[in-house]
């Protein structure tokens, strides 16, 4: 690699150190009984459910994110249609959306990347539970949304034309396809703002006894799994904010049960840090090491979570839930629910902290919903499908439909929580 790359690598390290110092200063105030007031910044951004960049996104919540060369306020790219995902951690952006800032092809105007001492660029392969995967280098940028700025935060570039082929060892769930295009991602990026501060944690560090196939280094084009300290892992950008860094609040309006073309709400940063993000009477459900609470239905407990990145309510299976699967009428809709008339459900959530509370939702006929508004509706509060098969029922995934008509708080593990919440592994509250 050229010497220019080498000096850039060095400057990344410097910038990371600087960011850590700022964070420490901010946290220092929080540990005292009297919190040092921080000048409030605009902490809320518009978040909208719409048809997405390709016109075919259903129940996907989008924000715009500004990505800048570290230290610059002018060498920036605004990325629209970045999906808000409370079920993942860290920013991922399509290389094609980064313009001249795209570092993945070795572009000299591209963003700095995380590199080892031999100038090998750190690569990441993330496979989602649906078996799709994102593959590309880990870059560093100043990421802004509303008035909040995460300085020099590591994020993943999802490569359209990756420099190296995806390592087969990453595809643990088989090859469900690359997310390296707008049509596959149905967005220009994903901003993971869930309960964890980064996308791997201690498991990917050198002290771990068993490292997952997630981060790679590819010297001479041969990719092997790498250990990465947490400061260099792709991070939940919220924890990099100088303040309002302990969680997010997702607020969406109530919508018609028939669906609507679009719905405009907000994502607000911080919990209990400003007048617009108080927990109030919301019930706090702390999560376990998997980021989940217990959710029970019919006297049986299942893993439960609140995930804006799931576009439906993935609730048990048709037999257990007593609801028809669309596959019975149209094989193309297999796995979605198609009841004759909408079905109301109530489940009981129990946090690791023992807090219990109900979650209520309705599931309507998917095929009907998709034909409502002449097929022009993309926001639904009653879209549901199977989270299991007719034989085994194992999750209650309260996806984006659950978020309409309320504010949902997501508290991040390890960050200072308001006095009425605890956060061993983070929490959800609503």
């Amino acid at each position, binding site marked *: 690699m050229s010497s220019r790359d080498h000096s850039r690598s060095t400057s990344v390290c410097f910038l990371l150190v600087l960011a850590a110092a700022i964070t420490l200063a901010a946290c220092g105030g929080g540990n005292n009984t009297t919190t040092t007031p921080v000048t409030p910044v605009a902490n809320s951004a518009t978040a909208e459910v719409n048809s997405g960049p390709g016109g075919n996104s259903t129940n996907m919540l989008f924000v715009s994110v500004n990505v800048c060369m570290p230290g610059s306020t002018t060498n920036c790219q605004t990325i629209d249609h970045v999906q808000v995902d409370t*079920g*993942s*951690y860290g920013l991922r952006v399509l290389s094609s959306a980064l313009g001249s800032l795209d570092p993945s092809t070795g572009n000299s105007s591209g963003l700095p990347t*995380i590199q*080892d001492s031999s100038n090998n660029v750190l690569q990441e392969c*993330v*496979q*989602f*539970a*649906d*078996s*799709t995967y994102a593959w590309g280098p880990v870059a560093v940028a100043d990421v802004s949304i509303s008035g909040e700025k995460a300085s020099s935060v590591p994020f993943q570039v999802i490569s359209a034309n990756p420099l190296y082929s995806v390592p087969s060892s990453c595809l*643990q*769930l*088989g*090859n*469900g*396809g690359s*997310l390296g295009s707008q049509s*596959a991602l*149905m967005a220009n990026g994903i901003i*993971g703002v*869930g309960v964890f501060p980064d*996308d*791997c*944690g201690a*498991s990917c560090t050198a002290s771990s*006894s*068993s490292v*997952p196939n997630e981060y790679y*280094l590819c010297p001479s084009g041969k990719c*092997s*799994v*790498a*250990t990465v300290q947490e400061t*260099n892992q792709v991070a939940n950008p919220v924890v990099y904010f100088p303040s309002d860094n302990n969680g997010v609040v997702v607020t969406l309006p109530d919508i018609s049960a028939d669906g609507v073309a679009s719905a405009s709400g907000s994502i607000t940063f911080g919990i209990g840090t400003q007048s617009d993000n108080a927990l109030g009477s919301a019930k706090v459900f702390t999560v376990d*090491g*998997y*980021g989940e609470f217990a959710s029970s239905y019919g006297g049986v407990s299942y*893993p439960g*979570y609140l995930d804006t*990145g*799931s*576009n*439906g309510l*993935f609730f048990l299976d048709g037999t257990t839930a007593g609801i028809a699967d669309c596959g019975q009428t149209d094989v193309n809709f*297999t*796995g979605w629910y198609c009841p004759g008339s909408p079905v109301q459900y109530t489940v009981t959530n129990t946090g690791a902290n023992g807090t219990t509370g109900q979650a209520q939702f309705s599931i309507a006929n998917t095929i009907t919903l998709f034909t409502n508004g002449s097929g022009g509706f993309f926001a639904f509060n009653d879209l549901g*499908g*199977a*989270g*299991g*098969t007719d*034989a*085994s*029922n*194992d*999750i209650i*995934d309260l*996806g984006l439909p659950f978020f309409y008509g309320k504010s949902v708080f997501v508290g991040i593990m390890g960050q200072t929580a308001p006095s009425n919440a605890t956060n061993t592994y983070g929490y959800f509250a609503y």
Partner: protein
Amino acid sequence: MKTTLGIFVTLLLAVAPAWATLGEYESSVSVDRQYLRGEVRQQAMSGYTVHRIAAANGVTVREYVSPKGIVFGVAWTGQFAPNMQQLLGSYFSDLEQAQRATPPRRGRPLVVKTDRLVLVSAGHMRGFHGHAYAPDLLPTNVSAEVVR
């Protein structure tokens, strides 16, 4: 940043001499145990046996064995997904075929349902859940619902 994984990869290959599991004899469980480098606990149930393998990385795999000694189902929970090629053995090609036939869509569980294989992969980053079983191999009087 240091790369110490060269050593790790070598070790892993050394203890994974063969692919095995779903549809294989019970002895394949020990291969999986080695592969996952975990502890095994065995529990006899009515009509079948469960081997519970807790791997070092926090992934728990449960393998369900019929009275004839055949693994008829597997289930997993963990911060990461276990290797399906290892767990599904010869049934992995059924998964691949299903993924090619119906490309998975983002943001919803992966559900495969064929005559030979039923598989669900659900969850989210740092929290994976799933199970798979071979309908033909279910022991008499054992419901597929035990595989979870």
